[in-house]
């Protein structure tokens, strides 16, 4: 029954004979490839932002670039390995989901440099994979700023948060957001819901619907990938505010997206690639925050908050960047700021 394969082989062999000469991908500058998780391109946030970084590498530094979108989690490891095998000098895994795959492949290809977004390995692990750079973000710092905006915008004293899966990265968004809200008004209600998925806009919409309708929230911040697109749609339907995440999501609903917590994955990919290509690189984790301009608010054209609220948030941004206030990283710490 191998004949199916054989037919394929024959068909494609004929195709090769007919086809023109092999077209190579040779480029003088180092080549950079990235592997997206199953969310893939078009999520209007995390992955798209990484893609911007890849484009910047191609445009500004002339790197040859290539990306692969994974169909399933089992594709991560072979995709990373394939890029390495095809001679890409720097290979990125976008998202902590690829932590195990990057670790395994990095061991198999010690001469290739690997980067991973949203994950840091332990010192011990880096000893086995000195060719890997982990990039972490202080999402809580950026989330703090949108928390301030939310607190100064709400009329009902109730704001919401919709997370994707219940995992540490997303906890940082929640913690920062709550801190921003309660540093502004410690008596405010913050409704938290984890939808459990990153790729279900329908679920996001129904969760946000109930927050807006039943529970009187009028600003909802999401950190839920494309599930969050549903949150923004719900805000549009109810004439309330949503706060976007990762990329500037204002264009999704210009009158209902208050602001977006920008996470500059592009900065991570761009700067990280430069670090990886420096001679003498050794495995380590880099944490990027407000100070590095890697998290923050959307540009002013996409800001719908009042001037005073915006001013307040920017004031906080300076304080945090200077290290004069440390934003809590865990929801439990943030909850201490709430006063009945």
């Amino acid at each position, binding site marked *: *029954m*191998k*004949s*199916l*394969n054989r*037919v*394929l*082989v024959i*068909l*494609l*062999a004929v*195709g*090769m004979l*007919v*086809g*023109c000469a092999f*077209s190579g991908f040779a480029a003088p500058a180092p080549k950079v*490839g990235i592997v997206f*998780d*199953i969310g*893939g391109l078009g999520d209007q946030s995390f992955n798209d932002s990484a893609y911007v970084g890849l484009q910047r590498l191609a445009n500004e530094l002339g790197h040859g670039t*290539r*990306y*692969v*979108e*994974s*169909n*399933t*989690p*089992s*594709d991560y*490891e*072979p*995709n990373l*390995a*394939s*890029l390495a*095998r*095809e001679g890409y000098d720097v290979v990125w895994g976008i998202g*902590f*989901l690829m*932590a*195990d795959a990057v670790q*395994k*492949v990095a*061991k*198999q*290809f010690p001469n290739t440099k690997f980067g991973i977004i949203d*994950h*840091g*390995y*332990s010192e011990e692990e880096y000893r086995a994979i000195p060719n890997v750079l982990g990039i972490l973000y202080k999402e809580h710092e950026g989330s703090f700023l949108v928390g301030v905006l939310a607190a100064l915008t709400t009329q009902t004293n109730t704001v919401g948060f919709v997370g994707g*899966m*219940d*995992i*540490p990265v997303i906890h940082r968004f929640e913690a920062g957001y709550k801190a921003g809200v309660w540093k502004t008004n410690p008596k405010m209600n913050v409704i938290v819901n984890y939808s*459990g*998925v*990153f*790729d279900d806009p329908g679920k996001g919409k129904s969760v946000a619907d109930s927050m807006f309708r039943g529970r009187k929230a009028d600003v909802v911040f999401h950190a839920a990938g494309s599930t969050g697109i549903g949150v923004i749609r719900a805000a549009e339907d109810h004439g309330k505010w949503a706060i976007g995440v990762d990329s500037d999501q204002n264009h999704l609903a210009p009158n209902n997206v208050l602001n977006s917590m920008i996470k500059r994955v592009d900065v991570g990919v761009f700067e990280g690639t430069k670090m990886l290509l420096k001679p003498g690189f050794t495995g380590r984790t880099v944490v990027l925050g407000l100070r590095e301009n890697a998290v923050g608010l959307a540009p002013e054209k996409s800001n719908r908050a009042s001037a005073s609220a915006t001013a307040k948030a920017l004031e906080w941004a300076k304080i945090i960047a200077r290290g004069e206030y440390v934003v809590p990283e865990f929801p439990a710490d943030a909850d201490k700021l709430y006063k009945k």
Partner: protein
Amino acid sequence: MSMNSKSKAWWRELLVPVVAVLVGLAIGAVFMLFTGANPLDAYRALLSGCFGSPVNLSETIVYVTPLICTGLSIAVAFRAGLFNIGAEGQMIVGMLASAIVGYALTGLPRIIHLPLTILSGMVAGGLWAAVPGYLKARFGVHEVVNSIMMNYIALYFSHYLVNGPIKDPNLASPYSPEIADAAKLWRFVGGHGSEFRVNSGIIIAIVAAILIYRLLYKTTKGYEIRAVGLNPEAARYAGIDVSTAMARSMLIAGSMAGLAGAIQVCGIQYKFLDLFAFEGFGFDGIAVALLAKGNPYGILAAASLFGVLNRGSQMMQLLARVPKETAGIIQASVVFLVAAEGIVEGWLPIRRMAKLDVAGKEETR
């Protein structure tokens, strides 16, 4: 005469899927032209990405292996007239069980630990499938609805476990600890960390296909399952316990999906990795079983095709910048054409002959 008609039926059975595959590839090519990609480049990439080097071949087999198991899972249930849409969830619990047994037990010799680990995955998958199987047999609750629910329960339950009870405390990420070396399947080239990930799991999967074939066609239990699937009323008339046969087929189906999970854990991942969505092996298994018309040996071929297309979709992106959706379109076209076999048969001269054969029989006996 019967030999002759048998061999004729054989190439006829094969002709439809082959034509369906060719047409599927043609439809994929049209789609690529539409998106500005070069189909020749793409299919060359698919070929070389799947077969072009030993390591690529190894990867292709890695893609094929779980599809054989999930395809068998769907086929066994289908033989009893049940639609096991729950292979996805059964595979997840299979992975969980194998990961837990694989890391929690230490110091066992390979000859005990490896079989135990694989078996625990199969048992877990079987039990997971037995729930909808039991509900169907006992109360007549439709197995499709139940299995879908069981898929979600498995997904979220695994998520809970791997973020808590079975999470490796030494890692930031939600992964279980790595299984013991004694629980790992043998990688043919270069040991456990090898980039040649092909492992003895493929042999297990092929043996499973042979065993399932034998079960269905050479044993009384298989006879019961097939009888119940084709005509439950007649099976009941004949004294076959319909509920038991259904429950048994679901149990076997679940153990096959569980085996897929066990092979993934013991041969590829070596641990349970948190899932953020279904991996799709169970759902692809439906298409594989359909393409193979439920024949266990056909499943080996159909799983190969789907494995090649799955890996090919990644390699076409990587080597030829072809959108990942292309492979999905090819797969969907192939399944569509096989499912609606009248379409393909209508293009071929065989259809009229087949029809007339039957008509002639009816008329003259």
